[in-house]
């Protein structure tokens, strides 16, 4: 390649980079626009021209959302159901993944195939029967009722199994020589050595559960039991439409998951690629 064509290639490269940045800005713009609109007084929001920054910056819509709506209660419901789903899902999957990977017992193969087969089952088709089940248990409008059908994430078991499969056999055998019990091996050797993957899986399970819509929407028939993702779209102001107020509520609803992603970007990426069956 001669000098001239190298320079031409660099020019193309620079143009491509600039285009990428422009595309990224345009891509993220609706999110920015939502946030900025939530910081404007209502009369500024509906002006017939575009203002990229508020003339009079105001947090009044946030104050309104927090003090005048049930958003605090919805936040609590979301935190409890998302944390509950995460803890129970990750813990039970960890135990099951360990048994599948390290122990020999009758029915191990069929169990493994059953879990793999369940990847295909669309849980959205089970909503009727989940509703009947949860109603019969008396758990509609309760945290337990919102959590229960969300506890199926077979992929997490498979990821744990893969990670435990890669552990050197010596660890288990050395520990077994010391007469350590099976549970001690799991919690003192296997869990600490795979702490990274547990963190990653916990973060994405939390994000999935926080973002869940269909089931929490069905399970909460009374407004005080709605999670935030349901509440902000199902309960409207009695007096007309206030765009900035709605957007302030949306920003509050998205904040925890956006922060979780920005703080743990690498872990989220790892868990997502793992969940698609690609080694991160």
């Amino acid at each position, binding site marked *: 390649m001669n000098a001239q064509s190298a320079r031409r290639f660099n020019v193309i490269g620079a143009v491509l980079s600039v285009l990428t940045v422009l595309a990224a800005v345009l891509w993220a713009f609706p999110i920015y626009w939502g946030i900025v609109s939530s910081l404007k007084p209502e009369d500024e929001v509906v002006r017939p021209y575009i203002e990229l920054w508020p003339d009079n910056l105001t947090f009044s819509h946030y104050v309104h959302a927090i003090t005048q709506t049930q958003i605090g209660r919805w936040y609590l419901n979301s935190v409890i159901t998302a944390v509950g789903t995460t803890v129970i899902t990750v813990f039970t999957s960890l135990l099951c993944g360990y048994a599948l990977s390290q122990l020999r017992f009758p029915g191990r193969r069929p169990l493994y195939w059953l879990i793999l087969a369940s990847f295909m089952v669309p849980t959205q088709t089970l909503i*009727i029967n989940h509703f*009947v089940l949860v109603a019969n248990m008396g758990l509609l409008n309760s945290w337990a009722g919102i959590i229960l059908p969300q506890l199926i994430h077979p992929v997490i078991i498979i990821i744990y199994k893969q990670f435990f499969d890669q552990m050197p056999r010596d660890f288990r055998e050395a520990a077994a020589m010391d007469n350590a019990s099976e549970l001690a091996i799991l919690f003192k050797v296997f869990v600490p050595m795979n702490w990274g993957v547990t963190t990653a899986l916990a973060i994405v399970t939390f994000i999935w559960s926080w973002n869940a819509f269909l089931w929490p929407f069905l399970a909460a028939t009374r407004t005080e039991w709605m999670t935030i993702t349901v509440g902000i779209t199902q309960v409207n102001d009695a007096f007309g439409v206030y765009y900035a107020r709605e957007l302030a509520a949306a920003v509050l609803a998205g904040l925890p998951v956006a922060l979780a992603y920005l703080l743990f970007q690498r872990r989220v990426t790892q868990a997502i690629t793992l969940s698609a069956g690609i080694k991160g």
Partner: protein
Amino acid sequence: MIRDARKEWGIALLLIAPFLAIYGLVFIYPTIDMFLLSFTDAPLIGEGDYVGTENYTRLVDDRRFGTAFWNTAYFVALSVVPGTAVALFIALAVSRLSGRFQALILAMFFLPYILPVSVIYLIWDWTMNFQFGIAMHVYDLLGIERIPVFKTTTWFIPAVAFITIWWTCGFNILLFLAGLRAIPTEIYEAASLDNAGRWRTFSRVTWPLLWPITALNLTIQLILQLKIFDQVYLFSQGGRPNDNLVMVYYIFQRAFQSNQGGRAAAVAVVLFGIVIIVSVLNFQIMRLAGRKQ
């Protein structure tokens, strides 16, 4: 090492018991229950009588079922391949960058994926607002007549597909980036020694090596979009839900709005069957393709 088989069995049982209990309760039992329910005329809550296959035969002339089926197919057509293509473009663009700059640009493309559907709905409902939405300024600028996008039958599904691509393609971008990183740099060095241009390098090196990831992305997208509900439901609020029906929406409508558990279950079984068939076909095709290579 001597294994105590019985002791090992006992511990294994203890470890898998919590999972099995949950799995049986919220997975296996509801699945069986769904099939049984579909042969009855039961309401949402309560007993019903056995009606044979009536709930299924009625679907043939059910206009709303037809709408739901074709809208789902239309939505899949508008979202799966275009969404994967957009993700591939973005991944290729992002993969050229490096370091913190790359992380920043990737975050901007990825951020929508992390947000709950209700936030996506509120943002776009505002952006596309007929009176005050910023997208309408763009319409004015381009000389297109303003339309209340989510209130029209023609534009509803395309608009929701567009927003869905914007929302979910971050996931596919990550998979493509992982795939691009897995391609050894030596191959690109060899290509540049051969004076291969950008396009030749892409079409002869990147594309073939990336094909397994592309197929994976298409598969995941296809199965995901068949099950669409949230966006369609939210954007239909105050619009024309009956024209915008998709499969899961129809299940919801029959069960929770018309109180017809049995008829809804029949629709659920049909969707269940479609998703399983698509999954199995996909798996077989991927396996055959894998063997050929």
